[in-house]
């Protein structure tokens, strides 16, 4: 079996352990949220007459909001994305290890079928089907609290920090992770899923007396979209910033005192063209047509929090947080974009 991508949602302490020891750790499932699930594993342990059953779970789907909520542990959450085939090649060297996609079944199905003992650890109720879980399982005749399985760091595709981590802290966390031996070149980004939160805010606004037209479904938009003009892209960024500031206001309990300053980088982007900052290149997380620079604290001396905001042909926004401005070596003009927040008091 070859898995394309496996994602593991955990927290920063688990990630540091993984990177430092270069192992993934299987733990006792007894503490899992879903007692149905842990019950089946207990049954499995009893029927197999083994002393230990340890497990580790991954999801096979793309980033989802509820994964961060359920598994991400707030601002300290991380998502480690693995090259599935490389990871499985490494862990399958461990004797006694089983790996399998979880099967999601309805109660009505169970009434008409018998369950093989070997299937017990890989069955979950249908309500959990969105998890699309892939599970590693190890059983042992001796008692074990945990099992560390060596993996090469090269099987890590990227690491994504929580969308709720304060952008000003994300650079420090990235630096810390990069400082771990052998991790200097790991791809580490902060999740831009917060954009989905902004999307929800758009939806909330649509219930006002003058509702805005419903957004065009993504698939249709992709089929008919024409690349945004500079003015359209600037408008997209200003909308993003409005919602970003609303989110900050909710998170920090008060409205930011000053408006950010927005600039358009007068640079032709071709897919993943980098932006040159004083600290080196920054790549758009997704292919982009227009790039903008948002200075969140324009009164302050450098360095301080800023964002590189990219707009794609589908008008999608991707963001890279930073603390450094564009470099003069890029020879790219910074064109001011007029911006004042839509509603200072939220």
């Amino acid at each position, binding site marked *: 079996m070859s898995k394309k991508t496996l994602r593991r949602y955990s927290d920063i302490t688990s990630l540091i352990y993984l990177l430092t020891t270069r192992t993934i750790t299987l733990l006792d499932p007894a503490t899992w949220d879903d007692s149905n699930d842990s019950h089946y594993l207990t049954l499995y342990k009893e029927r197999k007459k083994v002393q230990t059953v340890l497990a580790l779970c991954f999801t096979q789907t793309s980033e989802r909001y509820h994964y961060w909520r359920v598994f991400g542990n707030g601002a300290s959450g991380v998502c480690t994305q693995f090259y599935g085939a490389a990871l499985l090649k490494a862990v399958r060297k461990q004797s006694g290890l089983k790996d399998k996609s979880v099967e999601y079944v309805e109660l009505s199905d169970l009434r008409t079928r018998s369950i093989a003992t070997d299937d017990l650890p890989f069955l979950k109720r249908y309500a959990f089907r969105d998890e699309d879980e892939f599970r590693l399982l190890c059983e042992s005749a001796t008692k074990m609290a945990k099992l560390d399985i060596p993996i090469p760091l090269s099987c890590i595709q990227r690491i994504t920090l929580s969308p709720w981590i304060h952008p000003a802290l994300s650079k420090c966390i990235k630096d810390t992770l990069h400082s771990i031996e052998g991790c200097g070149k790991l791809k580490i980004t902060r999740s831009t899923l917060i954009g989905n939160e902004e999307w929800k805010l758009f939806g909330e606004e649509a219930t006002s007396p003058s509702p805005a037209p419903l957004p065009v479904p993504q698939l249709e938009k992709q089929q008919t979209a024409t690349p945004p003009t500079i003015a359209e892209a600037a408008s997209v960024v200003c909308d993003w910033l409005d919602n970003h500031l609303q989110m900050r206001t909710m998170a920090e309990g008060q409205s930011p005192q000053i408006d950010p300053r927005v600039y358009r980088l007068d640079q032709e982007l071709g897919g993943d063209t980098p932006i040159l900052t004083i600290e080196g290149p920054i790549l758009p997380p997704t292919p982009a047509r227009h790039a903008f620079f948002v200075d969140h604290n324009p009164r302050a*001396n450098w360095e301080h929090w800023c964002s590189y905001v990219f707009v794609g042909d589908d008008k999608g926004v991707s963001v890279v947080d930073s603390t*450094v401005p564009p470099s*003069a070596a890029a020879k790219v003009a910074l064109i001011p974009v007029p911006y004042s927040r839509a509603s200072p008091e939220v």
Partner: protein
Amino acid sequence: MSKLFVVLFAGCIDSYHTLAQYYNDLKRFGDFFSMLPDVDSNSLTVLHSDGSPPFIFTGVPNPTVGAGNMAGLQGALQSVAASAKTADRFVFVASNHGGIDNSLAYLWCWNSIKVYATDFAKACGAISAQRQAYVFGQCNSGGFITPLANSSRVILAGCGPNDVTYPTDDNNYDEFLLRVVENLENGERHFANVFAAAKAADTQKESPELSDPGGIGSDASLLTGP
């Protein structure tokens, strides 16, 4: 005779980020120090951007001027180290951009090169002058205190290791540095008092920090001479 060595530094990063406030800060500090006894063109060094802006100070019309790059900074500190004796005094002022990586603060030099606080402290460690003052205006400047602190140094930083600094409202000066130099201009010669007054007068909600483990900040002879 005790000599006062002064190095005024603004790395500026590159042409995009060479702001007027950095030149103004260095000019104002240079005018002040140039009027002190025991300061001359050999002991007053200005390092700014690529080294091209001219500096003429009130009391020293021809200071040593160089680029605010890594080589310029290293060369200036090595020159002071080679010349300064224990009875001499040393003042370093940075009006600049700064940052922090892995809890290690740095100053930006010309050409987008960072000089880390530990490397800076190592270079300054070769200076044998027993009375030294460091005044930092850049962001994260408090991160220079731990690597640099010792009993012969008073260190004034415009903010904590994880904080930012601000210019004055008119963008003509760095706020903290302006308050420092104003107090010096007004006759204060104890750096500890200069710091307290500058902190009190700061209008930009900054968080200045002071390190003075050896009481050098209460020794006016650092500026006035023995």
